[in-house]
């Protein structure tokens, strides 16, 4: 059976006993499941690579690897999470070294005490004028705000808030614990909000400092 390095514990389903050579039916099944995800996966690839050509290559590699590993996909399980996981693994193995996004060290994990402390000091959130300020933020600024996040945080925020994956799906895709998903998401969203507020501030909007 073809194993895909780095894919981790992808469970093998009933197609395991079949030859790994794809049948016409397998091609049809794969395309039927995978092609509707193209825009979503391309967007995710673009955010990973920050480059249109690299994003296209990453998506193509992802589909190729997913297709050749399709016999390891267990029917009835979450195909979208499986494809995202293939994308993520492909990116890590092929593209990470070329990544141009400046590295920023992330806090490894967020301890409960840290979060509790932030809860003690955290602000109330955006003030009312900030709705108007948020409306003025453009795509480039949103991208820049994402790019400024530590990659670990950016990934979970993107997967949750743009791609709409559940915590459980994100945990599967990134092969991390649900608690880690939650803590990274919490931190990442908070940092992203701060960055967006900074853009609003640069435009002269009055934005609270106490976030």
């Amino acid at each position, binding site marked *: 059976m073809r194993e895909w390095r780095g894919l981790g514990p992808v469970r093998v389903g009933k197609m395991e006993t079949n030859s790994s050579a794809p049948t016409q039916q397998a091609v049809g099944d794969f395309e039927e499941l995978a092609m509707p995800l*193209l825009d979503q996966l391309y967007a995710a690839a673009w955010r990973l690579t920050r480059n249109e050509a690299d994003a296209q290559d990453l998506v193509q590699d992802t589909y190729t690897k997913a297709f050749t590993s399709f016999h390891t996909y267990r029917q009835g399980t979450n195909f979208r999470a499986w494809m995202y996981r293939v994308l993520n693994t492909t990116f890590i193995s092929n593209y990470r070294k070329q990544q141009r996004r400046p590295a920023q060290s992330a806090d490894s994990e967020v301890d409960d005490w840290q979060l509790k402390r932030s809860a003690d000091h955290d602000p109330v959130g955006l003030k009312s004028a900030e709705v108007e300020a948020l409306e003025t933020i453009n795509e480039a600024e949103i991208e820049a705000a994402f790019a400024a996040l530590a990659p670990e945080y950016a990934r979970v925020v993107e997967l949750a808030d743009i791609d709409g994956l559940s915590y459980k799906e994100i945990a599967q895709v990134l092969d991390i614990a649900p608690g880690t998903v939650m803590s990274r998401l*919490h931190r990442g969203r908070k940092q992203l909000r701060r960055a967006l507020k900074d853009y609003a501030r640069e435009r002269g909007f009055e934005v609270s400092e106490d976030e």
Partner: protein
Amino acid sequence: MSENCPLCRILAVFVSEYLDTSIDAASQYLDCQASQTQLRQHLLECAHCREVVAREQKLRELLHRAVPVAPAGLEVRIRRTITMVKTTQTGR
């Protein structure tokens, strides 16, 4: 918002988790000391917190502004590649 209201403070920090309806999980993993039900009830009474929730929703909407769409031709390119892989593997 009341400075002394613990639920206002909790919602300010965990508004995203509230929108994800994952406050109860946050209580487990992130030391959020409230339940989804408590916060939902609190929102009925607190205009300030309703606004916090509305703004968080607005922020989420904004994030979708920066989502690119797959360029024309990529799907064809992928289908062609899959066909080539299939041909290579089956020898047909």
